[in-house]
């Protein structure tokens, strides 16, 4: 459809004017879904994602019940019109995979043993997609859990990073990729940590990088992650005690 651009970075500037280590504008709102026990909308540039949390509540079907702790269940989906070409409603294979890694990342911080036999349902919905939707959604989910008052060891915080090329084809690591970088870049990495203990709880990559490039990108991402974390804490001010 669209043709590959000649470069994704030129003279130190990315297609949207950012430098390599820059992240897009981040906006965070809590309590956006009145009916939910907790909710948040997080925007990374034009990527807008809403997360809503229901629970702890009774778990159906019964055979999923765990006698010693709660199940954290995540459902990631995109509005059909959040993307360029209409997405068929209902989750596909991509959505099922993202739901799985999202639930796993969140499970690393939720104190599930406080709610035996219950379920905590996290719904992540992409309203508008401009890349990094799973990470934006994971951040929203993390805040929505806090907004719901669910006890957690800490917040999960994520950013993406990737590898983009200049007009000579040389590759550079860059933080918080947006659509053309996701589509045409040489690597796209989703990355999240549990911020209490600084552990990697989500990491997914497509692309082709050396170990050194990967580590360099990760270091750049850590800075953006720290900023994101602070913004998240700010948004939760008064709702959730951290540190």
């Amino acid at each position: 459809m669209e043709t590959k651009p000649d470069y994704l970075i030129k003279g130190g500037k990315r297609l949207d004017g950012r430098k390599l280590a820059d992240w897009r504008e981040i906006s965070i709102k809590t309590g956006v879904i009145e009916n939910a026990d907790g909710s948040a909308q997080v925007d990374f540039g034009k990527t807008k994602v809403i997360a809503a949390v229901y629970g702890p509540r009774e778990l159906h079907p019964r055979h999923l019940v765990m006698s010693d702790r709660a199940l954290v269940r995540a459902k990631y989906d995109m509005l059909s019109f959040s993307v360029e070409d209409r997405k068929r409603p209902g989750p596909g294979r991509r959505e099922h995979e993202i739901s799985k890694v999202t639930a796993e990342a969140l499970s690393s911080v939720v104190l599930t043993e406080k709610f035996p036999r219950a379920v905590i349902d996290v719904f992540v919905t992409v309203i508008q997609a401009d890349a990094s939707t799973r990470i934006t959604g994971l951040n929203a989910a993390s805040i929505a859990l806090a907004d719901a008052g669910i006890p957690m060891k800490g917040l999960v915080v994520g950013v993406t990073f990737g590898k983009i090329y200049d007009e000579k084809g040389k590759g550079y690591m860059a933080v918080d990729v947006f659509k053309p970088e996701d589509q045409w870049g040489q690597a796209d990495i989703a990355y999240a940590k549990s911020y209490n203990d600084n552990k990697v709880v989500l990491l997914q990559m497509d692309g082709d990088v050396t170990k050194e490039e990967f580590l360099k990108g990760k270091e750049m991402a850590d800075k953006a992650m720290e900023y994101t974390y602070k913004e998240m804490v700010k948004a939760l001010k008064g709702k959730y005690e951290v540190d």
Partner: protein
Amino acid sequence: MRLIKMIDKITIKRIEDLLKDGKRLDGRKLDEFREVKVETGVVTKAEGSAIVTIGKSRVIAGVKIGLGKPFPDTPASGVLMTGAEMTAWSNNEFETGPPSPAAIELARVVDRAIREAKIIDLDKLVIEVGEKIWMVFVDIYTMNADGNLFDAAALAAMAALSTAKMPIYKDDEVIRDNLKTNLPTNGKVVSTTYIGIDGKLLVDPTMIEEKALNARLTVGIKDGNIVSLQKGGKGGFTDEEVETILDGALKHSKKLLKALK
């Protein structure tokens, strides 16, 4: 689950008691609509989009326009498809999974109002007869469900459609950047929903009111004419009540049209 239902029962009893004095739980008059807010252009990736808020109910609708093949029996006509999802994140009682009968009804009632009111000129959406047409997808999602989803969904769909831009078909490609031309639409349709019991009719019900009084009638109005009707619920309406509802719908339709600008 059981606890919630018990709370519901108590609230329903209160609704019924208040109703005897012509009062509603949230202080509204029987024939009073909640505040209506329409925001358009909320999703720039969509050709058209809108968020509609009625009280605490909020829905989002988006329009995507793409290439397709016409149906064999209408080779010179574009296609309109309307979907609705009562998302599990918009209400504690909604579930994930394939569309429930209620969500199917919601989509079909909105679809019929738009279709019967001839809002979209499907004949103008033909690129090559029998081969290539534009398909207009209207998808509606509940964001926070607190009753009267029918009217909110119809408003959101209508707002999204009337602000939608046409993509451009050029050299076998669809261009969606910087679009200027509007999707060709004719006028506007809005719907008004009443619920009732024993002669008491309530416009724009909340979700708990819908549980209490389960006869429902949704009236689609365009240019002062009735273009769609949908009775729901296990109760019934007398002939007089039906007429009263039609009059009420005609009245409210004017205000709803204003909310659409």
